[in-house]
C-alpha cells in the first residue's frame, strides 16, 4: 500500500485553523513544514503532496478572511526547502498547465529532482478558477476541452525535455498549437529517469490524459463502488497506450479522524464541525459546484437544479450525487464537504481505519491513499503514530524505505528511454 501525506495550510478541514491544537501560523512558518516532513518520513510515507492555486481560493473577501487559505507557501519553493531537510520521502507538487510554460516548468521540477536526489513529482492540473484566470490576463476561463488539449501538449513537451537533456540523444524542438520550444534543458538528466507524473482530473478527458501520461493518479471517491469503478476504468484505459496496469498507482484521498476509541474520534470530528461558520461552508460548497453563490437558496432546503459545469466537472457530479443519495439539505451538504472537500472520510479507531483502508486496497479499488489530516500537526502525528503501525502489523505497509527515489518507493519503472 502506498501512502501520501497531503499537506494543506493548517489542515484539510475548512475550520482547522480555529482548532486549538492546529498550528495557526502554518502559512508563514517553514519550520512547521520541516517538522511535518520529518514526521511523514519517519513514518515511511511514500511522498508529501502539495496542492496549489495561483490565486485566492475564494472571491468573497469576507468569506476568505474567515479561512486560513488565502496565504501560504508557493509549493515549489516549499518543497525545494524540504528537499534538503529530508532524505527519502517523495516530494510532489501541483503546477498548472494553464498559466505556465513547459520549458520553465520542466526545468524547475528537474531542479527539484536534483536537489532531492530523485524524489520529485509533478501533479499536472488544468486551472478551473476564474480567480486564477484574472491573475494571468485572461478575460475568461478556457472551456474544459481546450484546457485539456493544452495540458496534453504541455505534458508531451515536458516529458520530451526530460528525455532530451544534454548528453542524451536529442530530438528537441517543438512547434505546436500552444507552445514552441527550441533547445534542450541545460540541466543533467533526472536521477530517477524522470520526475514522477501525477494527475488528479477524473473527467473522461482527464482519465484519458492520465492513462496516456501519469504514473500516479489522485482521486476523490466517497464509496467503495465509486472507487472501484474509477480504478477499473482507468486501469482499463492503459492498454490503448501500450501500458500495463501496474504502470499507474491510483491513490484516492482519505480524510481520517483517528483516536484511541471510537467515541473520542467522533468527539474530535464534532469539535471541528462546530467551528465551521455557515457562510464559509456554503461558499466552499458553491466553489465545488462551480456556481457563484449558493447562499441565495434556503440553507435548509435541497440543492437546486444546476447547469453542467465548465469548471471541475467530476467534483460537481460527485456533490450532486451525494445530495440526492442521502437527501441532504444545503447546510448538511456544506458541513459534510467542509470536512474533506468531497474526499472519503473515516472517523474511528486505528483498527477501524486500517480495516477500511485494507478493504479498499485488497478489494481492488486503490493502490494506496493520499492521507488528508484534518488539522496539522496533530492529525498527521496521530495517523503516523496509530494507523501506520497497524498497517505495518498487517503487512500492508513497509517498515522501512527499500530504495531512494520516489519511483523506487512507488514501484514504478524508470522511463523506457533511460
Amino acid at each position: 500500500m502506498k501512502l501520501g501525506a497531503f499537506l494543506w495550510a493548517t489542515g484539510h478541514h475548512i475550520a482547522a485553523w480555529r482548532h486549538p491544537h492546529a498550528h495557526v501560523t502554518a502559512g508563514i512558518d517553514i519550520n512547521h513544514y520541516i517538522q511535518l516532513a520529518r514526521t511523514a518520513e519517519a513514518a515511511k510515507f511514500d511522498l508529501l503532496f502539495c496542492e496549489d492555486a495561483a490565486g485566492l481560493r475564494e472571491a468573497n473577501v469576507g468569506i476568505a478572511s474567515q479561512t486560513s487559505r488565502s496565504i501560504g507557501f508557493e509549493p515549489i519553493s516549499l518543497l525545494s526547502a524540504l528537499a534538503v531537510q529530508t532524505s527519502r520521502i517523495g516530494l510532489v507538487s501541483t503546477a498548472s498547465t494553464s498559466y505556465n510554460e513547459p520549458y520553465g516548468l520542466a526545468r524547475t521540477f528537474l531542479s527539484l529532482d536534483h536537489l532531492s536526489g530523485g524524489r520529485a513529482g509533478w501533479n499536472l492540473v488544468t486551472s478551473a478558477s476564474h480567480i486564477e484566470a484574472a491573475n494571468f490576463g485572461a478575460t475568461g476561463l478556457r472551456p474544459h476541452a481546450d484546457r485539456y488539449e493544452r495540458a496534453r501538449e504541455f505534458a508531451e513537451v515536458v516529458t520530451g525535455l526530460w528525455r532530451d537533456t544534454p548528453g542524451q540523444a536529442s530530438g528537441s524542438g517543438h512547434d505546436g498549437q500552444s507552445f514552441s520550444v527550441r533547445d534542450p534543458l541545460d540541466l543533467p538528466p533526472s536521477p530517477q529517469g524522470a520526475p514522477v507524473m501525477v494527475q488528479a482530473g477524473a473527467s473522461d478527458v482527464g482519465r484519458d490524459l492520465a492513462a496516456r501520461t501519469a504514473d500516479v493518479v489522485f482521486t476523490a471517491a466517497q464509496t467503495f463502488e465509486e472507487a472501484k469503478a474509477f480504478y477499473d476504468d482507468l486501469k482499463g484505459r492503459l492498454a490503448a497506450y501500450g501500458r500495463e496496469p501496474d504502470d499507474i498507482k491510483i491513490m484516492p484521498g482519505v480524510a481520517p479522524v483517528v483516536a484511541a476509541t471510537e467515541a473520542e474520534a467522533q468527539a474530535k470530528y464534532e469539535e471541528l464541525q462546530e467551528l465551521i461558520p455557515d457562510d464559509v461552508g456554503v461558499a466552499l460548497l458553491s466553489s465545488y459546484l462551480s456556481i457563484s453563490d449558493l447562499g441565495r437558496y434556503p440553507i435548509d432546503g435541497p440543492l437546486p437544479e444546476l447547469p453542467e459545469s465548465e469548471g471541475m466537472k467530476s467534483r460537481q457530479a460527485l456533490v450532486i450525487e451525494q445530495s440526492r443519495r442521502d437527501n441532504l439539505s444545503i447546510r448538511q451538504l456544506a458541513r459534510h464537504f467542509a470536512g474533506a472537500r468531497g474526499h472519503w472520510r473515516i472517523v474511528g479507531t486505528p483498527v477501524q481505519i486500517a480495516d477500511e483502508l485494507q478493504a479498499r486496497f485488497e478489494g481492488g479499488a486503490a493502490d494506496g491513499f493520499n492521507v488528508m489530516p484534518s488539522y496539522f500537526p496533530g492529525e498527521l502525528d496521530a495517523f503516523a503514530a496509530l494507523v501506520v503501525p497497524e498497517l505495518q502489523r498487517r503487512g500492508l505497509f513497509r517498515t522501512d524505505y527499500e530504495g531512494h527515489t520516489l519511483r523506487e518507493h512507488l514501484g514504478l519503472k524508470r522511463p523506457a528511454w533511460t
Partner: protein
Amino acid sequence: MHLAVSLLSAAAEAQPGSGLDFAGLARLVQKAETAGLDMVLVADSAPAAGGDGPNGQMPFEATTLLAALATVTSRIGLVAAASTIAHQPYNLARRFASLDIISHGRIGWHAAMAPNSREAANFSRPEGFSPENFRRRAEEYIGIVQGLWRGWDADALLFDQAGGRFHDPEKMRVLDHKGAYFSVRGPLNVARSPQDAPVLVLSGLPEPDLDIAVRMADVILVDEASVERAKARFSDLKRRIAACGRDAHSARVLMTIALDGTTPPTASADSLEELFRSKSCDGFNILIPPQAGAVDNFSDRVLPELRRRGLFRLDYEGTTLRSHLGLAGGGHQ
C-alpha cells in the same frame, strides 16, 4: 562598504572539473556567511543558451536552489536571477515572496534586463522582442511584481481563532493592474515579505534602462570602470535616484569586480579602498577567480584587511538582507 559574491564564479574553483552538488554549494555559502558578506548572487542561464549559460555547470535552477540554501544558512542574503520571459509576473512574485518567508527575510530578485532571443524561443515567443518592447514590458512586469509584494498590509494577519478572523479584509489590497502587456488582478496568495518586499537587483543596464533602475531598484549592479568614470556614474545615479523622489541612499550601487587571485591581499584591499573612498560605489559584487584557494584568500585575508581599515562591518547587525544593505523596510530587523 557592502559586499556581495557571485556564487558560480566562486563555485568554479571549489570543485574543479566536477559537477557541482548541493553540499558543495552550501559549504561555499556558509563560508560567505561566516565571513559576514551581505549576499551571494546566483545566476540562472535558464533558457538563455541551451547549456552554455552561466550555470551550465550547475544542475539547479536558481529559485529552487535558493529555497534549499535558505534552510542551511541564517544570516546571509540570497539573490537569484530570474528572467521576465521565463515566468508570468504573478508566478514569479509568488515564488520570491515565498522564498523570503522561508529565509526569514533574506531574499532578492535579480531581474535580467537584457532581452535574449534564444530564451524567448524556448517560451513560445520565437519572434522574440524588440529592445524597446522588451524594456517597456520589463518595466511593467517589475511594477506588477513589486505591487503584488505589497498586497497585504504588514498587520493584515490576525490569527484570531476564537473570533474566527484569520485576516483583516480591509488590509488585503487588490492590485487590479491593467497595462499594455499584462493584466493582473491580485492579491498574492502569499503573506507579506518579512522585509516588506524582497530586494530588487538590476544589472547590465544600458542608458534607457537606468531610468527604470533609479525608479525601482534596491540594488544596481554596475560594471567595473576607471575611477574617474565610476565616480561620474555614481554621482549621476545618486542624483537621478533623488530626482525620482527617492532618498539617494534607498538604492545601493555595487560595482562588479573580478579579483585577481594572484594579487596580494593588501593590494586587493587597496584597490577596493580606492574605489570606495573616491565615492564611485556603495560596495562591490566580487567575482572570485576560478583557482584553488581564491575563496579562502578573499575571506581569510582580504576581508580582515578591509575590516582593519574600518571599511567593512565586523558582523551582521540585522537579520534581513535589507538591514545588511542599510535599506528601509521590514519589521524584524
